[in-house]
């Protein structure tokens, strides 16, 4: 291996300390990997990264790279200092969709790794913030080769750009007792219904599906997804009173009072004189706190489903938005239930694609046109669960109040 290794005195300082060092991993690829192409590519990558550390600037610019038939899924990177670091001057990332829940067989991981070492740098991230496996570092030609090979054995690209993005779901039903829906089914069903919209970016901006099996929201769905599903239940939570008593005996009444009873956001809990728990299930908002503290004693009810919140996103451009409740409860049991979930997603994406401005996320559109117009656009009736409180401003015209009130009573009578 006859090549000069770049000195990396600043990066070397990230090899000390007890936390595993990404720099040490990258260096081993330069020094020990059997492929000389990878050794040299990684050497120049380290050289450019050291240059960034010295000058406190990034040196990658975007461009247009894709695979035949798709418009997105690749994050193109061309070096602005490619003359000094020619071996890594093209260093694109290939975004690949993981299985829902991020479960892997080692056989599949090894197979993906082998393909990536054949066509790319070998460097990989599990996972990026959107939820993709990020295969970091290959040139334009080998991007296609890598995709062809992994596509042959069952993997597909994720989203990038103004499109439906790779979805995310929690461990859910696969391992968690809090799970209130089949998270992984919901994830795969939704995102795979929009495969065309994933690969061919033609929407106003990005659109993300994230699925969490309960209000703990381990996928941060409500704050990161345009379409967030949060598991919940309609009937009573299950209370194993013997386990409650055992818990009180173990931790003491003061602990239970301070950490369970008084922490309930809707004051729906009280401790009975015999150390059993009293739950007002109609006041309970399924926040999950008491279940988290006493997972052996308390469980979700049997009539499970999901609350669907629309419009969550991070800062750009009008500021952070949490998703707003649009479907307070969606049962997901029969094939028809699942079909109607997909139809809801289609209706929302169609309405948004039709009405959003350039670069406007779904939540921003709702903020601009108003929740009521959005609900009318997607054919959903208003529900008190969608708001934290009714309007405060009296400066409003209510021309159709009587009709709206009638419709409300008619819906109540039907329910």
């Amino acid at each position, binding site marked *: 291996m006859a090549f000069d290794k770049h000195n990396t005195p600043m990066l070397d300082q990230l090899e000390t300390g007890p936390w595993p060092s990404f720099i040490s991993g990258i260096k081993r690829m330069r020094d020990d990997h059997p492929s000389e192409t990878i050794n040299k590519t990684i050497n120049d990558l380290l050289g450019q990264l050291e240059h960034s550390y010295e000058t406190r600037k990034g040196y990658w610019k975007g461009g247009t790279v894709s695979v035949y038939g798709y418009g997105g899924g690749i994050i193109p990177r061309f070096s602005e200092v490619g003359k000094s670091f020619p071996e890594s001057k093209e260093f694109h990332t290939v975004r690949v969709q993981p299985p829902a829940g991020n479960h892997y067989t080692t056989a599949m991981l090894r197979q993906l790794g082998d393909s990536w070492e054949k066509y790319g740098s070998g*460097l990989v991230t599990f996972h990026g*913030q959107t939820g993709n496996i990020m295969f970091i570092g290959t040139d334009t030609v080998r991007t296609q080769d890598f995709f062809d090979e992994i596509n042959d054995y069952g993997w597909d690209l994720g989203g990038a750009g103004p499109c439906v993005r790779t979805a995310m779901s929690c461990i859910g039903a696969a391992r968690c007792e809090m799970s209130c829906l089949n998270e992984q089914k919901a994830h795969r069903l939704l995102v795979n219904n929009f495969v065309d919209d994933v*690969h061919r970016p033609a929407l106003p901006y990005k659109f993300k599906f994230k699925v969490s099996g309960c209000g*703990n929201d381990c996928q941060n769905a409500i704050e990161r997804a345009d379409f967030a599903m949060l598991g919940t239940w309609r009937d009573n939570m299950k209370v194993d009173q013997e386990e409650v008593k055992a818990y009180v005996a173990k931790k003491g009444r003061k602990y239970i009072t301070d950490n369970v009873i008084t922490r309930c956001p809707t004051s729906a809990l009280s401790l009975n004189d015999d150390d059993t728990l009293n739950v007002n299930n109609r006041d309970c908002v399924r926040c999950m706190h008491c279940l988290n503290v006493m997972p052996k004693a308390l469980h979700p009810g049997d009539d499970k489903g999901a609350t669907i919140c629309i419009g969550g996103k991070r800062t750009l451009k009008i500021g952070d938005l949490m998703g707003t409740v649009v479907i307070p409860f969606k049962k997901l049991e029969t094939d028809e239930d699942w079909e109607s979930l997909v139809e809801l997603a289609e209706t929302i994406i169609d309405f948004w694609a039709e009405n959003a401005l350039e670069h406007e996320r779904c939540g921003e559109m709702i903020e601009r046109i108003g929740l009521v117009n959005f609900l009318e656009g997607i054919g959903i009736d208003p529900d008190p669960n969608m708001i934290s409180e009714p309007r405060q401003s009296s400066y409003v015209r209510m021309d159709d109040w009587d009709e709206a009130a009638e419709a409300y009573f008619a819906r109540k009578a039907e329910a």
Partner: protein
Amino acid sequence: MSESTMGPRNQGAPDYNLHLHPMMAKNYGKWDHHERLKPGVIRYTAESGDNLYVVRAGSPRTMSPATVHKICDIADRFCDGFVRFTIRCNVEFSTDKAENIEPIIKAVKEELGFPIGGTGNSVSNIAHTQGWLHCNLPATDASGAVKALMDDLIDEFEKEEMPNRVHISTSCCQINCGSHADISIIVQHHHAPRIDHKNMMICELPKVVAICPAAAIRPKMMNGATSVEVVEEKCMYCGACHGQCPSMEIRDADTDTLSIWVGGKASSTRGGPSQMKLAVWGIPNNPPRWPEASDAVRKILAAYKEGGKPWERVGEWIERIGWAKFFEKTGFPFTRYHIEDGPDALTTFNRSSHVRL
């Protein structure tokens, strides 16, 4: 170029059923409870009585093929050939045999050098962004800052001694892909973008104009060619335009700094989700180890660890003790810049007689 004539098959996300640990497949949707046996080790018990033991390890997120192969080796030996990753880039090794727990821990520590932890009320692995390694917009390197910070916080990853879980994120620009967290580090710029008018022809100008949250960008002819200008009084240095067009250079190595935000929470537990708020600004962007950023995070964590009640997240703790006490405990200054002036400003003012004296 490949000779493949077959178009891509649009197959989407692969079938998770092929990748589920057999114990998960068997008990899918039928789990009863879990118990944290010690930091980093959880036992999940199914209604059937089956137990699944999970060992969680912190990863450096971006990994070499050799590291991935080592993860697979361990999973092959102890986990029936299955492995999974969490949203915070932790690796989870699952086994139905309690006697495998200690050998997994030993193998993970010795062969991978990964710490065990990140469960319960610990400081979990940091959610972060690509930084100088791969992003086209970064003013800092999240990976490096995270490595240095986790070197400092590894004890808190390996123990469960915080009032509740702590999620930290770092981001290399204000788009903040690292997202909301109990503690979040974000880059802040200090002046308007410098425009490279010669290169402006490569950009879609309407997009550059439309992206600006402050409506500070407008089209302008420069030297006979179409370009844009920035109204300096309106610009608040967010760099959104830079994401649209590399000619809107927002980064400045001499002036860029970091800011720290606290109290973000996605979970609906107790009071519900909350957005993070400004704690401190002007932390030096100081590679390779960003010691000032680590110090500031340490101060917040120390105060929270000391004063937080069990189950209180960082934001809930601050809400209880009040912001005056937060600034007192951390030693950060409270300035006029902490007072919101955005569209929701009124909702952030104290409009009651509730004051902590």
